[in-house]
Protein backbone atom coordinates (compact mmCIF):
# COMPACT_ATOMS: atom_id res chain seq x y z
CA UNK A 1 0.00 0.00 0.00
CA UNK A 2 1.49 3.28 -1.14
CA UNK A 3 0.49 6.58 0.49
CA UNK A 4 3.28 8.68 -0.91
CA UNK A 5 5.37 8.19 -4.03
CA UNK A 6 8.70 9.79 -4.78
CA UNK A 7 10.03 10.26 -8.29
CA UNK A 8 10.99 6.62 -8.63
CA UNK A 9 7.56 5.45 -7.44
CA UNK A 10 5.84 7.91 -9.77
CA UNK A 11 7.86 6.59 -12.65
CA UNK A 12 6.88 3.01 -11.80
CA UNK A 13 3.23 4.03 -11.58
CA UNK A 14 3.39 5.66 -15.02
CA UNK A 15 5.02 2.53 -16.43
CA UNK A 16 2.12 0.48 -15.03
CA UNK A 17 -0.42 2.94 -16.51
CA UNK A 18 1.26 2.77 -19.92
CA UNK A 19 1.33 -1.01 -19.86
CA UNK A 20 -2.37 -1.15 -18.91
CA UNK A 21 -3.27 1.11 -21.83
CA UNK A 22 -1.22 -0.95 -24.28
CA UNK A 23 -2.95 -4.12 -23.02
CA UNK A 24 -6.37 -2.55 -23.69
CA UNK A 25 -5.78 -1.72 -27.37
CA UNK A 26 -8.49 -4.04 -28.68
CA UNK A 27 -11.06 -2.91 -26.11
CA UNK A 28 -10.56 0.71 -27.13
CA UNK A 29 -10.68 -0.14 -30.83
CA UNK A 30 -14.00 -1.94 -30.49
CA UNK A 31 -15.55 0.82 -28.38
CA UNK A 32 -14.42 3.40 -30.94
CA UNK A 33 -15.73 1.38 -33.89
CA UNK A 34 -19.21 1.61 -32.38
CA UNK A 35 -19.33 5.42 -32.54
CA UNK A 36 -16.08 6.62 -34.13
CA UNK A 37 -13.71 5.37 -36.81
CA UNK A 38 -11.87 2.63 -34.93
CA UNK A 39 -8.38 4.12 -34.66
CA UNK A 40 -8.48 4.98 -30.95
CA UNK A 41 -6.86 1.75 -29.72
CA UNK A 42 -3.88 1.83 -32.04
CA UNK A 43 -3.44 5.56 -31.45
CA UNK A 44 -3.32 5.16 -27.69
CA UNK A 45 -0.96 2.21 -28.06
CA UNK A 46 1.42 4.36 -30.13
CA UNK A 47 1.31 7.10 -27.51
CA UNK A 48 1.79 4.94 -24.45
CA UNK A 49 4.49 2.82 -26.10
CA UNK A 50 6.36 6.08 -26.64
CA UNK A 51 5.67 7.02 -23.01
CA UNK A 52 7.14 3.68 -21.87
CA UNK A 53 10.21 4.34 -23.94
CA UNK A 54 10.62 7.81 -22.42
CA UNK A 55 10.12 6.50 -18.88
CA UNK A 56 12.59 3.67 -19.42
CA UNK A 57 15.22 6.02 -20.86
CA UNK A 58 16.34 7.04 -17.37
CA UNK A 59 15.19 8.36 -14.01
CA UNK A 60 13.23 11.61 -14.51
CA UNK A 61 14.36 14.67 -12.53
CA UNK A 62 11.13 14.99 -10.61
CA UNK A 63 7.57 13.68 -10.36
CA UNK A 64 6.43 16.69 -12.35
CA UNK A 65 9.03 15.93 -15.06
CA UNK A 66 7.95 12.28 -15.22
CA UNK A 67 4.31 13.23 -15.83
CA UNK A 68 5.30 15.92 -18.30
CA UNK A 69 7.52 13.51 -20.24
CA UNK A 70 4.66 11.01 -20.35
CA UNK A 71 2.31 13.70 -21.67
CA UNK A 72 4.81 14.88 -24.27
CA UNK A 73 5.30 11.33 -25.55
CA UNK A 74 1.52 10.86 -25.82
CA UNK A 75 1.04 14.24 -27.50
CA UNK A 76 3.77 13.61 -30.08
CA UNK A 77 2.93 10.03 -30.94
CA UNK A 78 -0.79 9.37 -30.51
CA UNK A 79 -2.09 11.98 -32.93
CA UNK A 80 -5.74 12.86 -33.40
CA UNK A 81 -8.02 14.25 -30.74
CA UNK A 82 -6.89 11.60 -28.27
CA UNK A 83 -3.24 12.68 -28.50
CA UNK A 84 -4.13 16.31 -27.86
CA UNK A 85 -6.50 15.52 -25.01
CA UNK A 86 -4.51 12.88 -23.12
CA UNK A 87 -1.19 14.60 -23.82
CA UNK A 88 -2.67 17.79 -22.35
CA UNK A 89 -4.03 15.91 -19.32
CA UNK A 90 -0.57 14.65 -18.35
CA UNK A 91 1.42 17.71 -19.39
CA UNK A 92 -0.83 20.26 -17.68
CA UNK A 93 -1.78 17.94 -14.84
CA UNK A 94 1.92 17.57 -14.02
CA UNK A 95 1.77 21.02 -12.35
CA UNK A 96 -0.23 19.39 -9.57
CA UNK A 97 2.94 17.59 -8.50
CA UNK A 98 5.08 20.72 -8.12
CA UNK A 99 5.48 19.84 -4.44
CA UNK A 100 7.65 16.88 -5.46
CA UNK A 101 5.62 13.86 -4.33
CA UNK A 102 2.48 11.94 -5.28
CA UNK A 103 0.02 11.90 -2.38
CA UNK A 104 -3.74 12.31 -1.99
CA UNK A 105 -3.59 16.09 -2.26
CA UNK A 106 -1.24 16.28 -5.23
CA UNK A 107 -3.07 13.48 -7.06
CA UNK A 108 -6.33 15.48 -6.75
CA UNK A 109 -4.48 18.58 -7.93
CA UNK A 110 -3.17 16.61 -10.93
CA UNK A 111 -6.70 15.74 -12.04
CA UNK A 112 -7.95 19.28 -11.40
CA UNK A 113 -5.14 20.95 -13.36
CA UNK A 114 -5.53 18.37 -16.11
CA UNK A 115 -9.29 18.84 -16.33
CA UNK A 116 -9.06 22.63 -16.62
CA UNK A 117 -6.54 22.31 -19.46
CA UNK A 118 -8.51 19.61 -21.29
CA UNK A 119 -11.75 21.62 -21.10
CA UNK A 120 -9.97 24.65 -22.53
CA UNK A 121 -8.20 22.70 -25.29
CA UNK A 122 -11.24 20.73 -26.36
CA UNK A 123 -13.73 23.56 -26.01
CA UNK A 124 -16.15 21.13 -24.40
CA UNK A 125 -18.21 20.93 -21.23
CA UNK A 126 -19.55 18.00 -19.25
CA UNK A 127 -22.41 16.09 -20.86
CA UNK A 128 -21.11 15.99 -24.44
CA UNK A 129 -20.15 12.33 -24.27
CA UNK A 130 -16.39 12.78 -24.09
CA UNK A 131 -13.63 11.69 -21.71
CA UNK A 132 -14.49 14.79 -19.67
CA UNK A 133 -17.60 12.94 -18.47
CA UNK A 134 -15.26 10.49 -16.73
CA UNK A 135 -12.47 12.93 -15.83
CA UNK A 136 -14.63 15.60 -14.19
CA UNK A 137 -16.37 13.30 -11.67
CA UNK A 138 -13.06 11.53 -11.05
CA UNK A 139 -11.43 14.84 -10.25
CA UNK A 140 -14.22 15.76 -7.78
CA UNK A 141 -14.09 12.32 -6.16
CA UNK A 142 -10.31 12.49 -5.79
CA UNK A 143 -10.55 15.91 -4.11
CA UNK A 144 -13.24 14.68 -1.71
CA UNK A 145 -11.10 11.67 -0.74
CA UNK A 146 -7.72 13.42 -0.83
CA UNK A 147 -7.57 13.81 2.96
CA UNK A 148 -7.77 10.03 3.32
CA UNK A 149 -4.54 9.49 1.45
CA UNK A 150 -3.32 8.52 -2.00
CA UNK A 151 -4.81 5.06 -2.13
CA UNK A 152 -8.26 6.29 -1.16
CA UNK A 153 -8.07 9.17 -3.64
CA UNK A 154 -7.03 6.86 -6.48
CA UNK A 155 -9.76 4.36 -5.67
CA UNK A 156 -12.41 7.08 -5.47
CA UNK A 157 -11.29 8.60 -8.76
CA UNK A 158 -11.20 5.24 -10.55
CA UNK A 159 -14.66 4.31 -9.42
CA UNK A 160 -16.09 7.75 -10.29
CA UNK A 161 -14.49 7.52 -13.75
CA UNK A 162 -16.01 4.13 -14.36
CA UNK A 163 -19.42 5.43 -13.33
CA UNK A 164 -18.87 8.41 -15.63
CA UNK A 165 -18.10 6.15 -18.59
CA UNK A 166 -21.25 4.17 -17.85
CA UNK A 167 -23.31 7.36 -17.59
CA UNK A 168 -21.97 8.53 -20.97
CA UNK A 169 -24.04 5.77 -22.59
CA UNK A 170 -27.15 7.86 -21.98
CA UNK A 171 -25.64 11.01 -23.51
CA UNK A 172 -25.92 12.32 -27.05
CA UNK A 173 -22.54 13.05 -28.62
CA UNK A 174 -22.35 16.75 -29.54
CA UNK A 175 -18.66 16.96 -30.42
CA UNK A 176 -16.04 14.85 -32.21
CA UNK A 177 -16.59 12.26 -34.91
CA UNK A 178 -19.55 10.73 -33.04
CA UNK A 179 -21.42 14.05 -33.17
CA UNK A 180 -23.12 13.27 -36.46
CA UNK A 181 -24.67 10.15 -34.95
CA UNK A 182 -26.84 12.35 -32.74
CA UNK A 183 -29.37 10.22 -30.91
CA UNK A 184 -27.90 7.09 -32.53
CA UNK A 185 -24.91 7.55 -30.19
CA UNK A 186 -27.13 6.78 -27.18
CA UNK A 187 -26.39 3.36 -25.74
CA UNK A 188 -22.69 3.49 -26.56
CA UNK A 189 -20.18 4.65 -23.95
CA UNK A 190 -17.19 6.91 -24.42
CA UNK A 191 -14.31 4.43 -24.97
CA UNK A 192 -13.15 5.05 -21.40
CA UNK A 193 -9.37 5.47 -21.65
CA UNK A 194 -9.44 7.74 -18.59
CA UNK A 195 -10.98 4.93 -16.61
CA UNK A 196 -8.16 2.57 -17.68
CA UNK A 197 -5.56 5.12 -16.54
CA UNK A 198 -7.14 5.65 -13.14
CA UNK A 199 -7.79 1.94 -12.56
CA UNK A 200 -4.10 1.27 -13.22
CA UNK A 201 -3.18 3.99 -10.71
CA UNK A 202 -5.56 2.48 -8.17
CA UNK A 203 -4.07 -1.00 -8.68
CA UNK A 204 -0.57 0.39 -8.38
CA UNK A 205 -1.26 2.12 -5.07
CA UNK A 206 -3.31 -0.75 -3.58
Amino acid at each position, binding site marked *: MAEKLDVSGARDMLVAVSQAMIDQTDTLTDADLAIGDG*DHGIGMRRGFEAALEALNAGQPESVEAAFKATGTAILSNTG*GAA*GAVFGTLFRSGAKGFSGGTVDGESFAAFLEEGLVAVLKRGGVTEGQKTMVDALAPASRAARAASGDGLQAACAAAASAALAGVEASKGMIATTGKARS*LGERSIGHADPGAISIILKAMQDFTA
Partner: protein
Amino acid sequence: MANPKKILNDPKKVVGEMLDGLVLANDGRLRKLDRHAAIVRTDLPDSKVALLIGGGSGHEPIFHGFVGRNMGDGAACGQVFAAPSPDIIYEAAKAVHRGRGILFLYGNYAGDNMNFDMAAEMLEDDGIDVRTVRVTDDVAAAPPERTHDRRGIAGDLYMIKIAGGASSQLNTLDEVERVARKAVANVRSIGVAVAAGSIPETGKLTFELAEDEIEIGMGAHGEAGVSRQKIAPADTVADLLMDKILGDLPFRRGDEVALMINNLGATTMMEMLIVNRRIRQILDREGIKVHRTDVGTWLTVQEMAGFSVTLLKLDDELKRYLDMPAESLGYSRM
Protein backbone atom coordinates in the same frame (compact mmCIF):
# COMPACT_ATOMS: atom_id res chain seq x y z
CA MET B 1 -16.53 -10.95 -43.12
CA ALA B 2 -12.90 -11.41 -44.20
CA ASN B 3 -10.66 -8.37 -43.81
CA PRO B 4 -10.11 -6.49 -47.07
CA LYS B 5 -6.87 -7.33 -48.88
CA LYS B 6 -4.11 -4.74 -48.88
CA ILE B 7 -0.59 -5.08 -50.19
CA LEU B 8 1.55 -3.66 -47.36
CA ASN B 9 4.71 -4.32 -45.43
CA ASP B 10 4.48 -3.62 -41.69
CA PRO B 11 0.99 -2.05 -41.16
CA LYS B 12 2.48 0.11 -38.38
CA LYS B 13 4.86 1.70 -40.85
CA VAL B 14 2.46 2.60 -43.66
CA VAL B 15 2.70 6.37 -43.21
CA GLY B 16 6.50 6.59 -43.30
CA GLU B 17 6.83 4.20 -46.22
CA MET B 18 4.07 5.98 -48.13
CA LEU B 19 5.73 9.38 -47.64
CA ASP B 20 9.05 7.98 -48.89
CA GLY B 21 7.23 6.80 -52.00
CA LEU B 22 5.45 10.13 -52.38
CA VAL B 23 8.71 12.09 -52.28
CA LEU B 24 10.22 9.82 -54.94
CA ALA B 25 7.11 10.15 -57.12
CA ASN B 26 7.61 13.93 -57.15
CA ASP B 27 11.04 13.67 -58.80
CA GLY B 28 12.90 16.08 -56.56
CA ARG B 29 10.21 18.72 -56.09
CA LEU B 30 9.41 17.61 -52.54
CA ARG B 31 11.31 16.46 -49.50
CA LYS B 32 10.32 14.77 -46.28
CA LEU B 33 11.54 16.21 -42.98
CA ASP B 34 14.17 13.99 -41.35
CA ARG B 35 12.40 13.25 -38.10
CA HIS B 36 8.79 14.18 -38.72
CA ALA B 37 5.97 13.00 -40.98
CA ALA B 38 5.88 16.17 -43.02
CA ILE B 39 6.37 16.97 -46.69
CA VAL B 40 7.62 20.32 -48.02
CA ARG B 41 8.40 21.77 -51.43
CA THR B 42 12.07 21.99 -52.39
CA ASP B 43 11.41 24.85 -54.84
CA LEU B 44 9.61 27.28 -52.49
CA PRO B 45 10.05 30.88 -53.64
CA ASP B 46 11.45 33.37 -51.13
CA SER B 47 9.15 35.88 -49.42
CA LYS B 48 6.03 33.92 -50.16
CA VAL B 49 3.06 33.70 -47.79
CA ALA B 50 3.24 30.03 -46.75
CA LEU B 51 0.34 27.61 -47.10
CA LEU B 52 0.46 24.62 -44.76
CA ILE B 53 -2.13 21.89 -45.17
CA GLY B 54 -2.50 18.57 -43.43
CA GLY B 55 -4.54 16.00 -41.63
CA GLY B 56 -4.80 12.29 -41.05
CA SER B 57 -3.27 9.91 -43.59
CA GLY B 58 -5.21 7.20 -45.38
CA HIS B 59 -7.20 9.67 -47.50
CA GLU B 60 -4.66 9.94 -50.34
CA PRO B 61 -4.03 11.85 -52.42
CA ILE B 62 -5.26 14.45 -49.93
CA PHE B 63 -3.40 16.17 -48.15
CA HIS B 64 0.26 15.40 -48.81
CA GLY B 65 -0.49 14.60 -52.47
CA PHE B 66 -1.52 18.24 -52.93
CA VAL B 67 1.85 19.76 -52.10
CA GLY B 68 3.42 21.43 -55.10
CA ARG B 69 3.49 24.52 -57.27
CA ASN B 70 0.44 26.75 -56.68
CA MET B 71 -0.90 24.17 -54.23
CA GLY B 72 0.15 23.53 -50.60
CA ASP B 73 3.72 24.50 -49.67
CA GLY B 74 3.91 21.71 -47.13
CA ALA B 75 1.77 19.11 -45.41
CA ALA B 76 1.75 17.78 -41.86
CA CYS B 77 0.77 14.12 -41.97
CA GLY B 78 -0.93 12.20 -39.19
CA GLN B 79 -1.28 8.48 -38.80
CA VAL B 80 -4.16 6.79 -40.63
CA PHE B 81 -7.38 8.78 -39.96
CA ALA B 82 -5.71 10.63 -37.05
CA ALA B 83 -4.65 14.29 -36.98
CA PRO B 84 -0.91 15.02 -36.96
CA SER B 85 0.61 15.91 -33.59
CA PRO B 86 1.57 19.52 -32.77
CA ASP B 87 5.29 18.87 -33.19
CA ILE B 88 4.81 17.55 -36.74
CA ILE B 89 2.73 20.61 -37.62
CA TYR B 90 5.21 22.95 -35.91
CA GLU B 91 8.22 21.52 -37.75
CA ALA B 92 6.38 21.53 -41.09
CA ALA B 93 5.38 25.15 -40.49
CA LYS B 94 8.95 26.20 -39.69
CA ALA B 95 10.13 24.46 -42.85
CA VAL B 96 7.70 26.31 -45.15
CA HIS B 97 7.87 29.72 -43.48
CA ARG B 98 9.44 32.40 -45.69
CA GLY B 99 9.00 35.40 -43.42
CA ARG B 100 5.49 36.42 -44.44
CA GLY B 101 3.40 34.30 -42.14
CA ILE B 102 1.62 30.99 -42.56
CA LEU B 103 -1.93 30.05 -43.42
CA PHE B 104 -3.10 26.77 -41.87
CA LEU B 105 -5.77 25.22 -44.10
CA TYR B 106 -7.36 21.92 -43.12
CA GLY B 107 -10.62 20.07 -42.58
CA ASN B 108 -12.72 20.89 -39.53
CA TYR B 109 -12.33 17.94 -37.13
CA ALA B 110 -11.87 18.09 -33.35
CA GLY B 111 -8.48 16.35 -33.52
CA ASP B 112 -7.11 18.54 -36.30
CA ASN B 113 -8.40 21.69 -34.62
CA MET B 114 -6.72 20.91 -31.30
CA ASN B 115 -3.39 19.81 -32.74
CA PHE B 116 -3.12 22.66 -35.28
CA ASP B 117 -4.13 25.16 -32.57
CA MET B 118 -1.38 23.89 -30.27
CA ALA B 119 1.16 24.22 -33.08
CA ALA B 120 -0.12 27.73 -33.87
CA GLU B 121 0.41 28.73 -30.22
CA MET B 122 3.99 27.37 -30.35
CA LEU B 123 4.66 29.35 -33.55
CA GLU B 124 3.16 32.52 -32.09
CA ASP B 125 5.58 32.14 -29.18
CA ASP B 126 8.32 32.22 -31.84
CA GLY B 127 6.86 35.42 -33.24
CA ILE B 128 5.47 33.83 -36.43
CA ASP B 129 2.09 35.05 -37.69
CA VAL B 130 -0.29 32.11 -38.21
CA ARG B 131 -3.89 32.22 -39.43
CA THR B 132 -6.27 29.29 -39.54
CA VAL B 133 -8.99 28.53 -42.07
CA ARG B 134 -10.97 25.33 -41.57
CA VAL B 135 -12.87 23.74 -44.42
CA THR B 136 -16.53 23.06 -43.55
CA ASP B 137 -18.11 21.93 -46.81
CA ASP B 138 -20.06 18.84 -45.68
CA VAL B 139 -23.72 19.92 -45.56
CA ALA B 140 -24.72 16.58 -44.04
CA ALA B 141 -22.75 17.22 -40.85
CA ALA B 142 -24.82 20.05 -39.36
CA PRO B 143 -27.60 22.50 -40.30
CA PRO B 144 -26.74 25.75 -42.14
CA GLU B 145 -26.83 27.85 -38.96
CA ARG B 146 -24.04 25.68 -37.51
CA THR B 147 -21.51 25.62 -40.37
CA HIS B 148 -18.73 25.72 -37.74
CA ASP B 149 -19.82 22.16 -36.81
CA ARG B 150 -19.44 20.89 -40.36
CA ARG B 151 -16.64 18.58 -41.49
CA GLY B 152 -14.25 19.24 -44.33
CA ILE B 153 -14.50 16.71 -47.17
CA ALA B 154 -13.63 16.83 -50.88
CA GLY B 155 -14.17 20.60 -51.04
CA ASP B 156 -10.69 20.67 -49.45
CA LEU B 157 -9.22 20.28 -52.94
CA TYR B 158 -10.79 23.47 -54.31
CA MET B 159 -9.84 25.32 -51.13
CA ILE B 160 -6.21 24.21 -51.43
CA LYS B 161 -6.23 25.07 -55.13
CA ILE B 162 -7.57 28.58 -54.48
CA ALA B 163 -5.43 29.29 -51.40
CA GLY B 164 -2.40 27.89 -53.25
CA GLY B 165 -3.04 30.19 -56.19
CA ALA B 166 -3.74 33.18 -53.94
CA SER B 167 -0.64 32.61 -51.82
CA SER B 168 1.52 32.63 -54.94
CA GLN B 169 0.10 35.96 -56.12
CA LEU B 170 -0.79 37.95 -53.01
CA ASN B 171 1.84 39.44 -50.75
CA THR B 172 0.15 39.50 -47.38
CA LEU B 173 -1.20 36.84 -45.07
CA ASP B 174 -4.28 39.03 -44.53
CA GLU B 175 -5.16 38.87 -48.22
CA VAL B 176 -4.53 35.15 -48.58
CA GLU B 177 -6.65 34.48 -45.51
CA ARG B 178 -9.44 36.68 -46.87
CA VAL B 179 -9.56 34.77 -50.17
CA ALA B 180 -9.48 31.38 -48.41
CA ARG B 181 -12.35 32.41 -46.12
CA LYS B 182 -14.40 33.57 -49.07
CA ALA B 183 -13.82 30.25 -50.81
CA VAL B 184 -14.87 28.27 -47.72
CA ALA B 185 -18.02 30.37 -47.38
CA ASN B 186 -19.05 29.43 -50.92
CA VAL B 187 -18.35 25.69 -51.08
CA ARG B 188 -20.81 22.90 -50.32
CA SER B 189 -20.45 19.11 -50.58
CA ILE B 190 -22.24 15.91 -49.69
CA GLY B 191 -21.26 12.28 -50.06
CA VAL B 192 -22.91 8.92 -50.44
CA ALA B 193 -21.42 5.74 -48.99
CA VAL B 194 -21.86 2.40 -50.72
CA ALA B 195 -19.37 0.24 -48.80
CA ALA B 196 -16.85 0.77 -45.99
CA GLY B 197 -13.07 1.06 -46.11
CA SER B 198 -10.71 -0.41 -43.52
CA ILE B 199 -7.83 0.79 -41.36
CA PRO B 200 -4.56 -0.93 -42.39
CA GLU B 201 -3.37 -1.62 -38.85
CA THR B 202 -6.58 -3.16 -37.50
CA GLY B 203 -7.91 -4.58 -40.77
CA LYS B 204 -11.37 -3.65 -39.53
CA LEU B 205 -14.03 -1.88 -41.57
CA THR B 206 -14.80 1.61 -40.25
CA PHE B 207 -18.56 1.07 -40.40
CA GLU B 208 -21.17 -1.47 -41.47
CA LEU B 209 -23.65 -1.15 -44.31
CA ALA B 210 -25.93 -3.96 -45.44
CA GLU B 211 -25.43 -5.41 -48.95
CA ASP B 212 -28.39 -3.50 -50.36
CA GLU B 213 -27.95 -0.25 -48.40
CA ILE B 214 -26.36 3.12 -49.07
CA GLU B 215 -26.00 6.08 -46.73
CA ILE B 216 -26.52 9.63 -47.91
CA GLY B 217 -24.23 12.14 -46.26
CA MET B 218 -21.86 9.76 -44.53
CA GLY B 219 -18.57 11.36 -43.49
CA ALA B 220 -15.09 10.39 -44.55
CA HIS B 221 -14.58 8.21 -41.47
CA GLY B 222 -17.96 6.54 -41.44
CA GLU B 223 -19.56 9.35 -39.44
CA ALA B 224 -23.32 9.01 -39.71
CA GLY B 225 -25.02 10.85 -42.56
CA VAL B 226 -28.52 12.14 -43.03
CA SER B 227 -30.27 8.97 -44.14
CA ARG B 228 -29.65 5.30 -44.72
CA GLN B 229 -31.70 3.71 -47.45
CA LYS B 230 -31.97 0.96 -50.05
CA ILE B 231 -29.64 1.30 -53.01
CA ALA B 232 -31.24 3.37 -55.78
CA PRO B 233 -30.58 4.34 -59.44
CA ALA B 234 -27.81 6.91 -60.16
CA ASP B 235 -30.31 9.60 -61.16
CA THR B 236 -32.26 9.19 -57.91
CA VAL B 237 -29.11 9.38 -55.82
CA ALA B 238 -27.88 12.43 -57.77
CA ASP B 239 -31.27 14.11 -57.20
CA LEU B 240 -31.05 13.48 -53.45
CA LEU B 241 -27.50 14.84 -53.18
CA MET B 242 -28.18 17.92 -55.30
CA ASP B 243 -31.33 18.66 -53.34
CA LYS B 244 -29.26 18.88 -50.14
CA ILE B 245 -26.52 21.01 -51.67
CA LEU B 246 -28.49 23.47 -53.81
CA GLY B 247 -30.79 24.68 -51.09
CA ASP B 248 -28.01 25.04 -48.55
CA LEU B 249 -25.91 27.98 -49.77
CA PRO B 250 -28.31 28.49 -51.56
CA PHE B 251 -27.13 28.32 -55.17
CA ARG B 252 -29.32 30.55 -57.36
CA ARG B 253 -30.25 30.98 -61.02
CA GLY B 254 -27.42 32.81 -62.78
CA ASP B 255 -24.71 31.57 -60.40
CA GLU B 256 -21.50 30.24 -61.85
CA VAL B 257 -19.94 27.20 -60.17
CA ALA B 258 -17.12 24.71 -60.20
CA LEU B 259 -18.40 21.14 -59.98
CA MET B 260 -16.42 18.28 -58.48
CA ILE B 261 -17.33 14.62 -58.25
CA ASN B 262 -14.89 12.82 -55.96
CA ASN B 263 -14.37 9.09 -55.73
CA LEU B 264 -14.13 7.91 -52.10
CA GLY B 265 -11.94 5.02 -53.19
CA ALA B 266 -13.57 2.11 -54.95
CA THR B 267 -16.29 3.65 -57.09
CA THR B 268 -15.84 3.43 -60.85
CA MET B 269 -15.34 6.40 -63.16
CA MET B 270 -18.25 4.99 -65.13
CA GLU B 271 -20.63 5.48 -62.21
CA MET B 272 -19.36 8.98 -61.52
CA LEU B 273 -19.79 10.04 -65.13
CA ILE B 274 -23.35 8.73 -65.14
CA VAL B 275 -23.98 10.80 -62.02
CA ASN B 276 -22.32 13.81 -63.68
CA ARG B 277 -24.77 13.54 -66.57
CA ARG B 278 -27.70 13.86 -64.18
CA ILE B 279 -26.11 16.65 -62.16
CA ARG B 280 -25.70 18.71 -65.33
CA GLN B 281 -29.36 18.16 -66.18
CA ILE B 282 -30.29 19.49 -62.75
CA LEU B 283 -27.95 22.49 -62.98
CA ASP B 284 -29.27 23.33 -66.45
CA ARG B 285 -32.81 23.20 -65.14
CA GLU B 286 -31.87 25.49 -62.23
CA GLY B 287 -30.07 27.96 -64.50
CA ILE B 288 -26.71 27.46 -62.82
CA LYS B 289 -23.70 27.68 -65.11
CA VAL B 290 -20.78 25.29 -64.73
CA HIS B 291 -17.45 27.08 -65.19
CA ARG B 292 -15.40 23.90 -64.84
CA THR B 293 -15.85 20.24 -63.92
CA ASP B 294 -13.48 17.94 -62.04
CA VAL B 295 -14.27 14.23 -61.90
CA GLY B 296 -11.65 12.11 -60.18
CA THR B 297 -10.12 10.67 -57.04
CA TRP B 298 -8.93 13.23 -54.48
CA LEU B 299 -10.21 12.42 -51.01
CA THR B 300 -10.47 8.71 -50.39
CA VAL B 301 -11.16 6.55 -47.37
CA GLN B 302 -9.05 3.55 -48.31
CA GLU B 303 -11.25 1.10 -50.28
CA MET B 304 -14.50 2.78 -49.30
CA ALA B 305 -17.01 2.82 -52.16
CA GLY B 306 -19.09 5.89 -52.82
CA PHE B 307 -18.56 9.43 -54.04
CA SER B 308 -19.18 13.02 -53.10
CA VAL B 309 -20.44 16.02 -55.03
CA THR B 310 -19.04 19.51 -54.45
CA LEU B 311 -20.29 22.84 -55.76
CA LEU B 312 -18.26 26.02 -55.36
CA LYS B 313 -19.90 29.32 -56.21
CA LEU B 314 -17.43 31.47 -58.11
CA ASP B 315 -16.75 35.14 -58.57
CA ASP B 316 -14.00 36.61 -60.75
CA GLU B 317 -11.41 36.46 -57.98
CA LEU B 318 -12.07 32.83 -56.98
CA LYS B 319 -12.14 31.87 -60.66
CA ARG B 320 -8.74 33.46 -61.24
CA TYR B 321 -7.03 31.44 -58.48
CA LEU B 322 -8.92 28.24 -59.17
CA ASP B 323 -7.91 28.36 -62.84
CA MET B 324 -4.21 28.91 -62.25
CA PRO B 325 -1.88 26.13 -63.39
CA ALA B 326 -0.94 23.76 -60.61
CA GLU B 327 1.40 20.86 -60.20
CA SER B 328 1.19 18.11 -57.59
CA LEU B 329 0.97 14.34 -57.55
CA GLY B 330 -2.72 14.40 -56.66
CA TYR B 331 -3.83 17.29 -58.85
CA SER B 332 -2.19 18.93 -61.83
CA ARG B 333 -3.56 21.42 -64.29
CA MET B 334 -1.72 23.16 -67.10
